[in-house]
C-alpha cells in the first residue's frame, strides 16, 4: 500500500530532523554556558566603569569637557547593529530588526553592522552602511572592538554625527533576550547631582585622564554588547532548537500512530478477503 510507504518515509524524515535539531540544541547549550559566564563576569566591571565615568564627569568644569561629552550640531546619527551571523535562533533576529526600524528617524542615519543578519536586513531597508563586520561563531575577542571604536571616533569626533547608538540584544536570562538601544555618545552628564564642594585630586590631570577613561568606557560598553549578543544568540538558538526537537518528536509519534493504524487496517482487510474467499470456496 502506497500510504504505508509514504508514512514510513515521513517518519524517517522527522527522525532525521529531530536528530539534527537535538545536536544543534546540545551545541548551543554547551556554548551558552561559556557565553553566559563571560557576559555576566564582565558586567560588574562595565557598571563600575559607567559609575566612575559619570562621577568624574560631574567633577569637572564645563570648559574642561571632552569631545565625547559635547553634542555636535548636526542632524545625523550613527547606529551600530549587532546580530548573529546565522539564523535558526527563533525570534531573535526579527525582534532585533523590529527595534532597528522602530529606532529609525528622519535624521540621516549611518549604520555599522556586525553580523550577517544585520547586514542583510539593514541593506534591505535601503540604509547607508558605512562598515560591516562578521560576528563569528565563537566568543568575540576584545580586539574586535578597536576597528569599531575607530570608526565611531572618525564620525563622532569629526562632527559628522550628533549621536552614536548601539542596538543589540540584552541577555536577561536563558528564556528572555531583549533587543535594546543604548545611547553610546555623547556621554550624558548627570548635572542634577553636581557637587561643587567636593575636592577631588586628579593625577596627572583631568585633561590626561578623561580621554583615556572615556575611550576605555566606550570600548568596554561595545564589548559588553558583543558578549551579551553572543550569549543571547546561543540561548535563543538552544530554546528554538529544543522546541523544534519537541515538535519533531510530536510529529513522529502522530505519524507512528497513523502508520500502525493503517497497517492494522490493511491486515484486517486481508483477513476479511481471505475469510470471504474461503467462504465462497466452501459454498461452492
Amino acid at each position, binding site marked *: 500500500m502506497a500510504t504505508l510507504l509514504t508514512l514510513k518515509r515521513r517518519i524517517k524524515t522527522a527522525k532525521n530532523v529531530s536528530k539534527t535539531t537535538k545536536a544543534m540544541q546540545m551545541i548551543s547549550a554547551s556554548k551558552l554556558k561559556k557565553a553566559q559566564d563571560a557576559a555576566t563576569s*564582565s558586567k560588574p566591571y562595565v557598571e563600575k566603569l559607567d559609575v566612575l565615568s559619570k562621577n568624574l564627569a560631574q567633577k569637572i568644569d564645563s570648559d574642561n569637557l571632552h569631545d565625547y561629552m559635547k553634542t555636535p550640531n548636526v542632524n545625523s546619527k550613527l547606529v551600530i547593529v549587532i546580530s548573529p551571523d546565522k539564523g535558526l535562533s527563533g525570534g531573535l533576529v526579527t525582534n532585533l530588526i523590529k527595534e532597528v526600524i522602530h529606532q529609525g528617524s528622519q535624521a540621516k542615519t549611518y549604520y555599522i553592522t556586525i553580523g550577517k543578519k544585520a547586514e542583510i536586513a539593514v541593506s534591505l531597508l535601503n540604509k547607508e552602511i558605512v562598515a560591516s563586520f562578521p560576528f563569528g561563531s565563537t566568543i568575540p575577542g576584545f580586539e574586535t572592538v578597536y576597528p569599531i571604536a575607530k570608526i565611531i571616533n572618525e564620525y563622532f569626533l569629526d562632527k559628522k554625527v550628533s549621536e552614536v547608538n548601539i542596538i543589540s540584544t540584552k541577555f536577561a536570562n536563558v528564556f528572555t533576550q531583549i533587543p535594546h538601544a543604548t545611547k553610546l555618545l555623547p556621554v550624558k552628564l548627570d548635572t542634577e547631582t553636581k557637587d561643587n564642594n567636593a575636592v577631588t585630586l586628579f593625577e596627572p590631570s583631568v585633561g590626561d585622564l578623561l580621554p583615556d577613561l572615556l575611550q576605555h568606557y566606550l570600548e568596554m560598553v561595545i564589548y559588553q554588547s558583543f558578549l551579551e549578543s553572543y550569549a543571547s544568540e546561543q540561548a535563543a538558538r538552544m530554546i528554538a532548537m529544543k522546541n523544534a526537537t519537541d515538535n519533531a518528536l510530536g510529529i513522529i509519534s502522530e505519524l507512528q500512530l497513523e502508520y500502525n493504524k493503517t497497517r492494522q487496517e490493511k491486515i484486517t482487510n486481508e483477513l476479511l478477503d481471505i475469510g470471504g474467499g474461503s467462504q465462497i470456496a466452501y459454498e461452492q
Partner: protein
Amino acid sequence: MKLILEVITPIKVILKEEVDEITIPTVNGEISILPGHIDLFTKITRGEMIIRRNNKIEPFAIMGGFLEVTKNHVNILADYAAHVNDIEIARVEQAKERAEKAMKEKDKELGYEQLQDDIRRAALQLKIAKKHKSHSRTS
C-alpha cells in the same frame, strides 16, 4: 576607620572588603592610601599592589586601569589583577614561553601588541610570585 576596597577586572570581581592600607603603582609613581584620604582619581600601571589588613600583608599583581577614591571607598578597575597565591609559576612560565615563541613566528592571528601584553603580564606575575611565594604561606 577602614577603607572599603573593590578590585574589579573584566573577568571577575577580585575582591570587595575592608582594608587598612593600599599601596599601588600609578602613572605618577607608587602611592599609599590610608583611611581619610582626599578624593582622588588616577591611572594605575603595571606592578605590585599591596594590601594591609589587620597587620597582614597581601600582595597582588596588577596591570593597567583606573583608581578612584571617594570618601573612604576605593574603586580599582584593572585590566588584570591576581592574588599572589593564585599565580601558578609553572603555568605562567609556560604561557610566557608560548607567547615568546608565537612572537618569533609572527603569529598574525593574535597580533604583536596582544603578545607583547601577554609577555609583560607573565613577566610581572613571575616577578611578584617569586618575590612573595616563599613566605606567603605563613602570612
